[in-house]
């Protein structure tokens, strides 16, 4: 019998997969790292890895549509004379004018207002349109201080000191020259067309002792009226939360690594920070250890997509959540409607993330007047409001099934985990057991 060498299929490396190889070639050809928008694209343990148990004999449920399940939340009850009252615990995260078009910012304000929630400015300052269309507007106080001024501080409803973002804890921002229109340049006091770096650290304070004085200064400037939030990226949530509380924050905003960004190095987005799921329990623990849980409110963000995610974040101890990417998608970002144009940009609907280039077919992450016109702020605002209402209803549906008459009554005992990783990160028992890694003497 003659021997035939059997066919061996070509084998690609798991380590050097196609994407990795393409990145090496891209770096070699261009000499620059990849900058992009959006959040991490790798899979990390997330809310999908948790399930609700629902009610049975030991817990009785509430009637859907009939028995009340409250969704309201008050933020800033610790020191502020005028706390923020919201109808739903789903808020709109800070996204800058500059990164987003004026129409997109207006749509966010309109949608949030219809749904009874707040929206947030971003790096680059507050625009009149945004203030005008947002019933409740949180004003970000960022390291760059672009556009910062006392008049806008006073016309804001709350102030958010941004220490970091989940997409890039420890990193600053970069708005590339092509997005710097005359108006953006003027608001930031910089020449048109140059790359604008946003600093990674505040220029006039370092560390929690300084932050305490900075918060005191902002309170004095605004006569102790406004709630002061402190936003941190998911890095060391226990200590960051404890230090924010110690510094006098009214609200802590905690943004996990899945959190979106307007433009950051891909290497940063994919490799720095902790998953949102792993951030919540340590932060809540810090609040509980300081007897500040529910006194200082916790807003969680980073990859929130549905009412189920909202309910899970709240069950783990958050008071509210914030959405960025999902809000943009609701407005029309990455919509298959523009597929032809996405393809012309070398991408496809759902994968488009070159938000820093300002060529967004959906007219959202751009300053191009023609593209911006594609987004009608009234229609887009309505879409966002619908989405916020659906999410709220979904969260209520789950809460009623767990027998809760307020979303805030959801608790860790309502959950089980599907994977060991999620069980460990969220400190929720693995489904069918009463155990999670780290609990007991295993």
């Amino acid at each position, binding site marked *: 019998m003659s021997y035939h060498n059997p066919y061996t299929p070509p084998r690609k490396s798991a380590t050097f997969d196609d994407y990795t190889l393409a990145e090496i070639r891209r770096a070699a050809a261009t000499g*620059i790292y990849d900058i992009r928008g959006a959040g991490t694209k790798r899979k990390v343990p997330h809310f999908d890895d948790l399930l609700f148990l629902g009610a049975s004999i030991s817990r009785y449920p509430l009637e859907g549509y009939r028995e009340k399940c409250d969704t309201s939340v008050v933020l800033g009850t610790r020191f502020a004379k005028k706390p923020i009252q919201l109808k739903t615990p789903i808020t709109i995260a800070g996204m800058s004018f500059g990164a987003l078009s004026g129409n997109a910012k207006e749509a966010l304000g309109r949608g949030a207002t219809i749904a009874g929630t707040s929206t947030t400015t971003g790096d680059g300052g507050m625009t009149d349109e945004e203030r005008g269309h947002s019933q409740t507007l949180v004003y970000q106080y960022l390291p760059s201080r672009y556009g910062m*001024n006392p008049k806008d501080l006073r016309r804001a409803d709350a102030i958010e000191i941004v220490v970091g973002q989940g997409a890039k804890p420890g990193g600053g921002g970069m708005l590339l020259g092509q997005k710097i229109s005359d108006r953006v340049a003027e608001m930031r006091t910089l020449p048109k067309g140059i790359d604008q770096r946003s600093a990674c650290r505040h220029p006039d304070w370092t560390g929690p002792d300084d932050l305490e004085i900075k918060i005191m200064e902002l309170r004095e400037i605004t*006569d102790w009226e406004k709630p002061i939030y402190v936003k941190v990226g998911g890095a060391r949530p226990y200590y960051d939360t404890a230090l924010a509380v110690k510094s006098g924050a009214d609200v802590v905003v905690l943004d996990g690594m899945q959190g979106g960004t307007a433009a950051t190095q891909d290497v940063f987005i994919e490799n720095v920070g902790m998953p949102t799921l792993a951030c919540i329990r340590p932060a809540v623990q810090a609040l509980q250890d300081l007897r500040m849980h529910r006194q200082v409110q916790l807003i969680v963000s980073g990859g929130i997509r549905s009412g189920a995610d909202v309910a899970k974040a709240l069950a783990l101890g958050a008071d509210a959540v914030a959405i960025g990417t999902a809000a943009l998608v609701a407005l029309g970002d990455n919509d298959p409607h523009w597929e032809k144009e996405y393809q012309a940009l070398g991408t496809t609907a759902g994968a488009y993330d070159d938000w820093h280039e300002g060529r967004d077919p959906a007219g959202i992450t751009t300053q191009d007047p023609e593209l911006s016109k594609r987004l009608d702020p009234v229609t887009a605002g309505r879409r966002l409001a619908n989405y916020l209402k659906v999410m709220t209803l979904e969260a209520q549906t789950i809460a009623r099934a767990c027998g809760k008459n307020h979303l805030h009554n959801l608790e860790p005992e309502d959950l089980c985990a599907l994977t060991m990783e999620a069980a460990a990160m969220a400190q929720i028992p693995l489904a069918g057991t009463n155990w999670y890694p780290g609990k007991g003497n295993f």
Partner: protein
Amino acid sequence: MPLRELNSALHALTAGSNDTEFKVINPRGSHAVAVGVDAPVSVQIKGSVGYYCAGMNDGGAITVHGSAGPGVAENMMSGTVIIEGDASQYAGATGRGGLLVIKGNAASRCGISMKGIDIVVHGSIGHMSAFMGQSGHLVVLGDAGDALGDSLYEAKLFVRGTVKSLGSDCIEKEMRAEHLAKLSEILQRAGITGVRPEEFKRYGSARKLYNFNIDNAEAY
């Protein structure tokens, strides 16, 4: 008078108010003294203050008869702030307008991220001053420390003494007639006599880091 009362009295002032002179005695290093002033009022502070004195000043004339802690006149919009003594770190940080005069020395990061403010220091300034300065003028009658004007945008720096070192993308630039004129106007506004603009050197941005280029990576 407690701090809260002082600041709220200052905020209660409107353009036509009768109270236009405030005197603060024994501030004992308090933080956030006279912050958020938004009326053309005069505030005389007799003693030294802590952090962020005159922060976000918008139109007030505030004088500290002593020294000031970190971040004096941070994010000033307009008006005048005068420090008779020395100023700590980040004096005039992110300031967008107005005039800050420091009669003693200023520590590190003076004028960091400045956005239109004019700062005049009679003495010397510390390291990393005018870091990422976007606009406005920093005038130093004495010397400057390390890394002056690092990552500078369009702020203009004038130093009469020596500069220990220049930061990334900051270079000495030609002093042209318009710069001499601007400098003499600022010196005059700051009430400085006996010093000629010709005694200064001008520093500004080489504008090489304005758009990212991998071959400049060592500078970032």
